[in-house]
């Protein structure tokens, strides 16, 4: 890689009581790539991701975004810095409409008196942007943007959550198990969505247990083991069973791939 990484983390450490969730962990994300993060349950993947997305504050270590050191105290701060996360539970409000959900927590107000004094939301503007984004990602066939999210299928909801992240993420998008709860067909659609987002130039961190999905879309695979980055491999040079073997410790990773 000759490019500068968009986000780097060095020496992250996080302890929960006597459990060390992150042990001197490093992380690099380069522009325009899909980086998959895999690891056994309890390896510390989610803690790593939470540290990057601001949900967890690491005890030690530094995170740099675009070469500048950052310290996120909440997911909101990370979001403001351009890091969007698609949570496994999607973080959507079922009773609210698609448009309301996409703009939840960062609503657009009407200009002038209506917005400044009556705090009126600019629904037409929000709906237009939501519709544009969904159309851009090929999710819009018959439009009813004011439909409640709970009337959508699992894949459609995922689509809304991804569209929200893609609409606001200026630096990177983190996706936590985006296909875990979906059927085969819907998973396929979401994978295409991920590639679509990548095509728009946003780098993606993909956390997944699904090896076929990981090997299909990832440019690099970060293998997490025992609270730290074990190695980063190129999915074209290794097989899925290799990856699982590294992940579980059944096989030692090659020197070249070893993390510094």
């Amino acid at each position, binding site marked *: 890689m000759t490019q500068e990484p968009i986000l780097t983390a060095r020496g992250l450490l996080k302890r929960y009581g006597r459990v060390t969730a992150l042990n001197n962990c490093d992380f690099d994300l380069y522009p325009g790539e899909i980086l998959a993060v895999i690891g056994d349950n309890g390896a510390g993947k989610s803690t790593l991701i939470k540290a990057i997305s601001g949900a967890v504050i690491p005890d030690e270590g530094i995170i740099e975004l675009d070469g500048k050191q950052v310290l996120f105290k909440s*997911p*909101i701060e990370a*979001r403001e810095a351009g890091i969007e*996360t698609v*949570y496994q*539970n*999607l*973080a*959507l*409000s*079922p*009773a*609210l409409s*698609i448009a*309301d*959900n996409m703009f*939840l*927590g*960062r*609503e657009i*107000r009407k200009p002038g008196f209506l917005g400044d004094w*009556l*705090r*009126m*939301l600019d*629904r037409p503007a929000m709906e237009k942007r939501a519709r544009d984004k*969904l159309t851009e990602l090929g*999710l*819009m*066939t*018959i*439009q*009813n943007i004011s*439909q*409640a999210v*709970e*009337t*959508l*299928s699992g*894949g*459609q909801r*995922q*689509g809304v959550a991804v569209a929200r992240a893609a609409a606001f993420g200026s630096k990177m998008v983190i996706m936590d198990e985006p296909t875990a709860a979906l059927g*085969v*067909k*819907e998973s*396929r*659609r*979401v*994978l*295409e*969505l991920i*590639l679509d987002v990548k095509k728009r130039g946003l780098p993606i961190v993909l956390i997944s247990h699904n090896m*076929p999905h990981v090997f*299909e*879309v990832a440019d690099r695979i970060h293998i997490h083991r025992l609270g730290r980055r074990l190695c980063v491999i190129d999915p074209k040079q290794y097989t899925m069973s290799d990856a699982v073997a590294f992940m579980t410790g059944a096989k030692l990773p090659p020197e070249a791939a070893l993390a510094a």
Partner: protein
Amino acid sequence: MSQVQEFEKAISSSDSVAAFDEHGTSVVKRIQHFLHSTPAAVPLIVLVLAIAVFGVTIGGRFFSSYTLTLILQQIAIVGILGAAQTLVILTAGIDLSIGVIMVISAVIMGNCAVTYGLPTLLAVVIGLAAGGACGLLNGLLVAYMKLPPFIVTLGTWNIVMATNFIYSANETIRDADVDVQAPLLHLFGLNFKVGTAVLTLGVIAMVVLVLILWYVLNHTAWGRHVYAVGDDPEAAKLSGIQTRKVLISVYTLAGLIAAFAAWVSIGRNGSISPSAAVTDYNLQAITATVIGGISLFGGRGSILGTLFGAMIVGVVSMGLNMMGADPQWKVLLTGVLIIGAVAIDQWIRKVSV
């Protein structure tokens, strides 16, 4: 397009899985969808039906604008309290203390104006502040101590009720004294006639308040956040909503509205009686809210429904009254309405695809 894996070959790529399209064309499904997107429709239909049924059985006497506006006068206080209750229930909470907050606010307003001789406007402000403070206490306990709203408000219900009796020594402030020393407290009792219809300022205040809250809930970010917090607090938090602030503001506003209801109640009752604290205002407000289609699980319903819910109770009790029925029938029918409303709410919730 990503390459398709072996086991997925059977899926035709043109199949648009995550596309948004219309589902369910059966009539029942459509009704379900309609009710889902228009939560105030059920209570409105019930209200119209109730008026029609009583109108047909009782006749013109019931249909007169005098009777119908009398119903509005009777429900003004419960309607305003119901509006406050709606805010709290939308966040998946409940406020049992709302009735006694109203009573203590009324007592404070009365004492300040009549007994201490403060300017009436100042007395009103102090009363409103007291109600808001009670609500703030509820909000802090719910948001920061993370106690269940039922428990918090059950506690403050008792605390406020006892404080009310201790503070007032259960002394009623007489109508005449209020009239002489602080006529402004009777402001919302003022009425004016339009033909045979009699409207009080209290009725108008209730309608205006509900309309304002409807606007705020549907057309401001704060309103959307109230729904989101009640719907799924975890999701709301991850979406960047400061859920604690929303909860505190909701409970405080509920207390403030309860204090406003106090002002209206002084206008309606004339005198100010601390013993009103034993009246089940809180349960009446919850009843109006639930019959109005506000889901007790939070995040669903329209505040207009609460207004209709309060009117339904008013129409039923007035109608049965005029028919000379035993008042217990009204209680029985209210119970049926509550269970029916919650059953319909559960059915509407199952709307998804």
